[in-house]
């Protein structure tokens, strides 16, 4: 048993793409990042909660906060896409619906991340 592939798979060249663990690794990597970033996020939101508009904007505009907010946005939307992908893979068994949902999730997560990032950049640059 040195080769677990069927002869047909060998003939078709359908071997490992060497990316089998990529989803697993990125999900954990973003999880570790969010461990710290989400605590910082909650702390920051608590600081801005009862202040006025100018105070909240000034808080996010601080370079340290703006950078962490961008990191938070990237990690959140990436992690969300990976997690929702698995949920759809597990529960949606109608092929066209599954593909449509996977595409929609990727598009929405990218748009959400891009819109949030642009907002933070505008705030940080004072525009």
């Amino acid at each position, binding site marked *: 048993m040195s080769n677990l592939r069927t002869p047909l798979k060998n003939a078709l060249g359908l071997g490992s793409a060497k990316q089998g663990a990529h989803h697993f690794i990125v999900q954990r990597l973003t999880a570790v990042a969010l461990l710290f970033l989400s605590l910082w996020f909650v702390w920051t939101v608590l600081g801005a*909660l009862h202040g006025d508009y100018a105070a909240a904007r000034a808080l996010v505009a601080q370079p340290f906060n703006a950078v962490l907010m961008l990191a938070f946005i990237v990690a959140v939307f990436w992690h969300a896409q990976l997690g*929702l992908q698995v949920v759809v893979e597990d529960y949606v068994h109608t092929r066209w619906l599954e593909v449509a949902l996977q595409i929609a999730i990727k598009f929405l997560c990218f748009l959400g991340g891009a819109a949030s990032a642009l907002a933070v950049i505008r705030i940080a640059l004072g525009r």
Partner: protein
Amino acid sequence: MPATARPLSPHLSIYRWQIQMVTSILHRATGIALAAGTILLVVALLALASGPEAYAKVQAFCASWIGLLLLFGWTWSLAYHLLNGIRHLLQDAGLGYLPAQFVRNGWLVVAGSLVLTALVWVCVFAQRGGA
């Protein structure tokens, strides 16, 4: 659904409810809830970037009873998903798989998530009282 009607393994309606499955189900449910919560993140940041009027609308929504209810739910979801996420990372490292440990850690996560949520909301209302 699959074209062939093959026998299925027992599902939720068959098993007795226990902490092992509840923590797993809640991790998914809170993950989905938090993904939905990112909509408020996007809206709030866009409002903050565009001006005081838009920001006031977001603040008014957050202070409404439906807003508070959602924020409370998202706070607990984040606390739970965060703590259970740490548990998952430890399990990835091969720790905590003995049945007794598994059950204990499950309850620790549930209790911890309630404590964290309470802590955050005590901060929220203490600030409002002080302001």
